[in-house]
């Protein structure tokens, strides 16, 4: 088999895996947009906040230690205990639920019936606030995130593909775990929305707020619920991305990778977030391989690399031309 084809296949597989990671971020956007029509600019920062909180709890860090020490002249940094990963995750979920409640109680409850642009701007404010408070609570250091996830090359895939093709494919164990978790997450979300009372209520609110209100569904409850779920999804994304790079400010920028996924998959579809992520992941990686670094067609086109960031958006725009609502988005015509 030609070497270039094998290399391209390996790149495409890694693109699929990268796409899953993008989808994890995009899912949070979709959940909130679907239920409340809010494009949550703060979703990336929520992933950062969740991951920082997780590591802080796990390492027994005293929140706001720097501010406390500066104010009271104390020298406290750590509680002196290390929390097990599972307990830390559960406690972080609790924090994200509290955050969801606070966001709705103090921000969005006061913005009911406002224009979407006002709600969007409120999430920009929320993003900057969360960024600042996360720094204040847990500090700006880069923290190692270790919840026992496997990392590094999957030797089984490497050896098996080597036996078959004479070339071993690289697939990161962390990406495989991310794919499994994403599948479970989507299955769980679909099951929740189809088979539970709260899930059906959530779908009703997504379809028509007024009608849902008229049958006695509490909008407040549903919004807290959906922000909590989005917070949980942000935690999962934060763990996966944080395991790669350490937990640091840049985690908030992963939202940039989710935007083309949303444009392509649609803002209201959970399967769209997954399929969109996969298309973007494979598309950008193959384009980089073939034309970014000129590995296809004898290096006929070589753009010098670093094409992934912009090509993802080109790909999404190309899809938008033919399906403005995205691949799986709802077609809404507000004017003729």
């Amino acid at each position, binding site marked *: 088999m030609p070497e270039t084809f094998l290399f391209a296949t390996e790149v495409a597989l890694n693109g699929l895996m990268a796409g899953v990671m993008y989808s994890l971020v995009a899912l949070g956007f979709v959940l909130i947009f679907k239920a409340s029509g809010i494009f949550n600019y703060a979703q990336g920062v929520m992933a950062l906040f969740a991951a920082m909180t997780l590591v802080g709890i796990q390492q027994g860090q005293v929140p706001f230690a720097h501010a406390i020490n500066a104010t009271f002249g104390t020298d406290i940094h750590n509680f002196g205990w290390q929390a097990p990963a599972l307990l830390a995750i559960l406690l972080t979920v609790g924090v994200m639920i509290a955050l969801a409640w606070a966001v709705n109680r103090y921000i969005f409850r006061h913005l009911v019936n406002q224009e979407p642009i006002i709600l969007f701007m409120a999430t920009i404010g929320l993003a900057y606030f969360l960024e600042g408070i996360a720094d204040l609570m847990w500090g700006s250091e880069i923290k190692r995130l270790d919840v026992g996830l496997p990392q590094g090359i999957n030797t089984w895939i490497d050896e098996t593909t080597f036996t078959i093709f004479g070339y071993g494919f690289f697939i990161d164990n962390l990406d495989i775990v991310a794919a499994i978790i994403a599948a479970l997450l989507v299955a769980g979300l679909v099951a929740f929305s189809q088979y539970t009372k709260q899930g059906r209520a959530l779908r009703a609110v997504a379809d028509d707020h007024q009608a849902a209100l008229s049958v006695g569904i509490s909008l407040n409850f549903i919004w807290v619920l959906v922000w909590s779920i989005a917070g949980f999804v942000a935690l999962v994304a934060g763990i996966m991305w944080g395991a790669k790079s350490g937990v640091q400010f840049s985690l908030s*920028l992963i939202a940039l990778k989710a935007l083309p996924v949303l444009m392509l998959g649609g803002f209201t579809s959970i399967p769209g977030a997954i399929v969109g992520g996969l298309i973007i992941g494979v598309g950008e990686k193959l384009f980089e391989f073939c034309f970014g670094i000129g590995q296809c067609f004898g290096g006929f086109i070589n753009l010098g690399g670093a094409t992934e960031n912009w090509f993802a958006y080109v790909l999404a725009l190309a899809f938008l031309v033919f399906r403005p609502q995205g691949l799986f988005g709802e077609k809404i015509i507000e004017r003729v």
Partner: protein
Amino acid sequence: MKTLTTLTAAATMAAAPALADLVIPDLSYRTGPYAAGGIPFSDGYQDYFTLLNERDGGIGGVPIRLIECETAYDTEKGVECYEATKDEGALVYQPLSTGITYQLIPKTAADGIPMHTMGYGRTSAANGEVFNNIFNYPANYWDGASVAINYLLDENDGSLEGKDIALVYHNSAYGKEPIRTLEALAAKHGFILSQLAVDHPGQEQRSTWVQIRQQRPDYVIMWGWGVMNQVAIQEAANIRFPMENFIGNWWAGAEHDVSPAGMAADGYLSLNMNTVDPELPVFDEIREHVIGSGEAAGDGSHVGSVLYTRGMYAAMLAAEAIRKAQEIHGEADITAAMMRDGMEALTMTEERMLELGAPGIGPVFSVSCENHGGSGQALVQRWNAAEGVFEPITGFISPDEEVIVPLVEEDSLAYAAENGIEPGCA
């Protein structure tokens, strides 16, 4: 009459000379994606000046006034910080950003304020005949690239003929700086150079490292900053690229770059323009006079780390230049123009570093009008993951002047021609 008296008093007060101080702006970044590197550097930079104030009452009897301004590593904000602080009597700028440096080069030239871009910024600023106000001692990017190649030459019995070397670089003005030198060195030594750009911020680098796995270069040199470093080191570990063949530049060789990868980063190499030793006497002084008295810029946890040390070293070089300026002009309360003269006459010897409580912290070098870049020497350090420290594995290595000097001259003279500058010494 009362009004007249008040006005006269006010006019007299306004005309009276302000209390003398040595103004040092600190264009720091404690927020944003590059804060993890900006914080320890700024802490070290400020703590050293605070030490001089607390212990010695300033320099030459004149206290130092630090003005911190947050840039978030954003070029626009950096320029705003410069504009906001330059009229305070700023003596020298240290923006810690190549992007900000490029914007400030014409401004500092027009305002007559020197700028020290230690190991970053515009490499050809080493030619002081063109860039009168810019200093990039003790080493610049092209020196760094050459030192990395000289180290590899040593490792390969003096020959890199036919070797594959990949440059993984931040796709920015900063990341592209070493390309020219490496291309010249590739032509000279016969190695094959491949270039792999990583877009800001560098959170996703899978295709880069899959390509490295496919091409199997003998060595990877990295010009990274921020999250790009942590992800690259993790990805290198994932594809089992040998860490002893992976060399970062001096902005890709701090503790926080390697710690997220844990033990997998063990053996990773990087350049450094200063040694790292938390037990230096100067750090004991900082612990006693600055941290102990609650005057530290941070919480003191970074003392002795790679970037804290570099920030402190930068401040030490600035303080030495102030002393030199005071000596040259016989005046303690110096101006920016005098500071420039001090920087241009700076000499760092082993004896002086010992006196300052930092023996061997940097290379021995001297600055002149023709050479604002110092000796260009750097060392190679290796990460010991078990101990959590970078350990030097070489002494200070000199760059290949035969290649660097003509490149500096060519680039700086082109800049002079473009900007109507007549090269020369004052």
